């Protein structure tokens, strides 16, 4: 299809552009007009980061062909305040601390603005429902909703506009004072530029060829056709790595691009840098790879069986790391127990789902310094590894941490910066790579799925006498942070309780699944989910209140931890008291007493929501629906 001539109005200014037939409204705004406040989070209308107004209606610009904007009046986040003061919605977001990483925030501001334009009197339930199409991964939505309610009250005239600027009075210190986030104005206006929003003169676009197989030997890669295509500046494979290939947070077992074999679906095999994205994609499609399929491992228990396929030659038993803790004598501890509980627990593989997909730019500067801008959570370590990979002195590699649109541990792995740097060195031009959401999902690490076999012995008065804790985690195809995650899982395993006799083993193994790595809590969550479930089961068995059984066993000053570290202080008693008081907890044995509790439904709980209540006619109808059941 030929390009189209398009005229529309954007943020009050007439715009005339020629756009490609495949261009989305999002591409027109970001690529042609440099209105990068509108973000691409998923490209599928699922996350809301690309929300704009088209003829006054809130639209996800990734779903709208640019050609359909002919004659339309478009408003983006940059147009809300223009060059004037922030709007009430933007000011309220600033006031409440509603922005964290900020990547979802332009879309959130647009959705909130749409909500209040539609109904300036919207109640909290309606606000939630109208904003339900916008995902935020950082804030837990609470401060966002608080902001929208404040803005509503100002817009509806129920509150004076001065509340938007009012802050608590400064006392004698800035420590402990709720200073407004200094980065918020840039985030609520869309002015902050993340790596995918940056443009450099003469910049190439990179695309990556990824493995379609979970485990296969690479027989041959033929890049000739791709390299011959007009507009293609370079095609790179493992053969183009100039130094010592391999990266990882603990063990450097992952090549920049697959070397000899692929170990998971989505692993980078080759990359293209071309004049534009379309050319780069076409070139990637023209690369031919011959694979010889290998038997795959998809279950961590299979990985430990004799004769299992070996994923990495250096680890013939497929074990990435085993961390043992031994304290006291568990046989004696279990012998002293009045009650022994044994249960198994499992946690799933979890995606970080930061709204900003991986993105970066690399270039070689005038002093031959290879420079990479990316939302890396660990520029120091990445600099070390990249210097080795490129065969350069450390001071010829420069890593710049661009604003991070959510990380949660998922941006600690150097999964694409190596490809960018090599392409920049080969072409001596800036190169940019922006992942799609699908690429981000298959190529980046996840939270380790784990299984825990738990045995706990207790005396009849609730004292834990011994624990045997065995965790097996699926590390996936590469080591990434598995070693550290297993270490932290072991250290924290049995919870904040003093246990004289314990035997803890945590293991991560290689499989051909999507790799697991660092994710907020680094194994602590998986381990303590099991422990805290066990504590409640033990409380029920022994007729104790859940708080009580924890107080009986809790760490105090002077306690010896699972790694036999003597604690100088421990604040568990304080947080137990605080949570018990704040929640108005009714003491009792946890034996399915929900129906009998008197502490439910207090003013600090929300009403259950009934989807579609507003569309069916508002809260009154919702109540009626409830009553009719």
């Amino acid at each position, binding site marked *: 299809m030929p390009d189209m001539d398009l005229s529309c109005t954007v943020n009050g200014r007439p715009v005339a552009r020629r756009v490609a037939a495949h261009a989305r409204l999002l591409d027109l705004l970001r690529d042609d007009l440099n209105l990068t406040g509108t973000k691409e989070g998923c490209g599928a209308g699922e996350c809301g980061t690309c929300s704009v107004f088209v003829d006054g209606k809130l639209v996800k610009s990734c779903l709208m062909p640019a050609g359909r904007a002919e004659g339309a009046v478009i408003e983006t986040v940059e147009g809300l305040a223009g060059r004037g003061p922030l709007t009430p919605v933007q000011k309220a977001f600033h006031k409440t601390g509603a922005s964290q990483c900020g990547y979802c925030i332009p879309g959130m501001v647009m959705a909130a603005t749409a909500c209040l334009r539609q109904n300036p009197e919207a109640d909290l339930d309606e606000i939630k429902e109208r904003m339900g199409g916008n995902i935020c991964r950082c804030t*837990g939505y609470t401060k966002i909703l608080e902001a929208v309610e404040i803005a509503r009250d100002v817009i509806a005239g129920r509150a004076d506009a001065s509340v938007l600027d009012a802050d608590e009075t400064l006392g004698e210190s800035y420590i402990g004072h709720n200073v407004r986030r200094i980065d918020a104005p840039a985030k609520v206006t869309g002015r902050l530029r993340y790596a995918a929003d940056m443009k450099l003169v003469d910049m190439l676009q990179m695309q990556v060829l990824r493995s379609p197989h979970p485990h296969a030997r690479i027989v041959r890669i033929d890049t000739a056709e791709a390299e011959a295509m007009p507009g293609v500046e370079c095609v790179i494979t493992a053969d183009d790595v100039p130094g010592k290939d391999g990266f990882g947070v603990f063990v450097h077992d992952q090549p920049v691009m697959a070397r000899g074999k692929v170990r998971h679906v989505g692993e980078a095999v080759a990359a293209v840098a071309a004049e534009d994205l379309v050319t780069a994609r076409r070139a990637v499609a023209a690369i031919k790879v011959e694979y010889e399929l290998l038997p795959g491992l998809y279950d961590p228990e299979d990985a430990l069986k004799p004769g299992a396929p070996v994923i990495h030659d250096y680890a013939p038993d497929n074990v990435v790391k085993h961390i043992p803790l031994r304290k006291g004598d568990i046989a004696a501890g279990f012998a002293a127990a009045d009650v022994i509980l044994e249960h198994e627990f499992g946690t799933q593989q979890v995606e970080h789902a930061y709204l900003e997909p991986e993105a970066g730019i690399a270039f070689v500067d005038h002093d031959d310094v290879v420079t990479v801008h990316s939302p890396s959570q660990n*520029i120091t370590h990445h600099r070390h590894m990249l210097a080795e990979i490129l065969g350069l002195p450390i001071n010829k590699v420069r890593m710049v941490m661009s604003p991070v649109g959510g990380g949660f541990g998922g*941006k600690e792995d150097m999964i694409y910066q190596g490809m960018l740097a090599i392409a920049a060195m080969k072409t001596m031009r800036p190169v940019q790579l922006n992942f799609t959401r699908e690429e981000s999902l298959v190529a980046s690490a996840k939270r380790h799925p784990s299984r825990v076999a738990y045995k706990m012995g207790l005396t009849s008065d609730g004292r834990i006498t011994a624990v045997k804790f065995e965790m097996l985690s699926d590390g996936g195809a590469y080591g990434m942070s598995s070693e550290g995650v297993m270490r932290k899982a072991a250290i924290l395993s049995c919870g904040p309780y003093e246990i004289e006799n314990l035997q803890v083993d945590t293991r991560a193994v290689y499989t051909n699944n999507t790799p697991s790595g660092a994710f907020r809590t680094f194994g602590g969550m998986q381990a303590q989910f099991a422990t805290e479930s066990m504590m409640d089961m033990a409380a029920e068995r022994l007729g104790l209140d859940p708080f009580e059984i924890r107080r009986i066993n809790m760490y105090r000053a002077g306690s010896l931890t699972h790694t036999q570290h003597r604690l100088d202080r421990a604040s568990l008693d304080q947080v137990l008291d605080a949570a018990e008081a704040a929640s108005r907890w009714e003491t009792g044995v946890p034996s399915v007493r929900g129906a009998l509790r008197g502490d439910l439904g207090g003013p600090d709980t929300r009403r259950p929501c009934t989807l579609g209540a507003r569309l069916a006619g508002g809260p009154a109808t919702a109540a009626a629906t409830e009553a009719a059941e």
Partner: protein
Amino acid sequence: MNAITETRAETRRKRGRGMAASWYGIARTATIDRAGAWAELDDGGTVKIVTGVTEIGEGILTVLAQVAAEETGTRPEDVTIGDNDTARSPEAAHAGATRQTYMIGNAVALASRQAREVLFEKIAEYWEVAAGELRAFDGEIWAEGSNLRMSVADAVAICKARGTVPVGSASFTANGTGLDPADGKGSPWQTYVFGTQVAEVEVDTWTGEVQVLGLWAAHDVGRAINPRGVEGQIEGGVVQGLGQALMEEYVTVDGHAATHGFAKYILPTALDVPQITCVIVEDEDPTSPLRAKGIGEPALVPTAPAIINAIYDAIGVRITTLPATPEKILAALRVQQP
């Protein structure tokens, strides 16, 4: 509503509560952690802070601005933070491990303190008082027990006119030790935090759907530098924990992702969020010049078990494999009530 429908509604939706406690270590694990920072009291009473790591959303830039302002006697808006560049700033290692406030916050506090001490020494000479008499806050500097007072802007100009640029630098260290390979013995962190959460849920026994209606989260964070920022971290952690407890699951089939987009990978939205009550407990840490610890990761540790314990309280079903999807709850209820 007649008596029969009322009974049916009661049978259908059941509520319960659960709790869970947790602990966590601050900064990098079982190793020596370190972070560096530079500080300069600059013209106009402004402050330059340079350190090698930046914001990932947790609010560290604001915390560092507060810390630098407090230590130099200026205001947060006077502080400019140069960050994030391995070629232009001192090493501060990585953005993770609940280490930003503790490691980088303390490095910035110490560097800023050093720059202020340089300024105080020169102004004490100028005023002919002891440096120990000087105080500075919110853009003003004064000598205790006197009427000597000027702006920090003027003080910096005087300091420079007397030949000295007020600069400071510092490195902060957390001394963890490695674990013994045989029995795991070791002191992995020098400071720990603790948390407890209570969840209140409603389970729809017809659909298996769980709604979390209330969540109370009490966390020790040491001294809270920015309480609102701490709340933001707790609320975000709780909702990630809720996602993992109830809906999120990255599924692969023979290594191929079956949840390859947000249409298949289900995340919590504004409609899923409970009313969250944060209780900040400040057990001030003597190993930390700021007396602060951290909150990033620990906020989500107790959420999933608190929710799962609450589901048990409501319907007597013990979910041992996450997530507690409607399908899993219905299957468990069928086993319970054949």
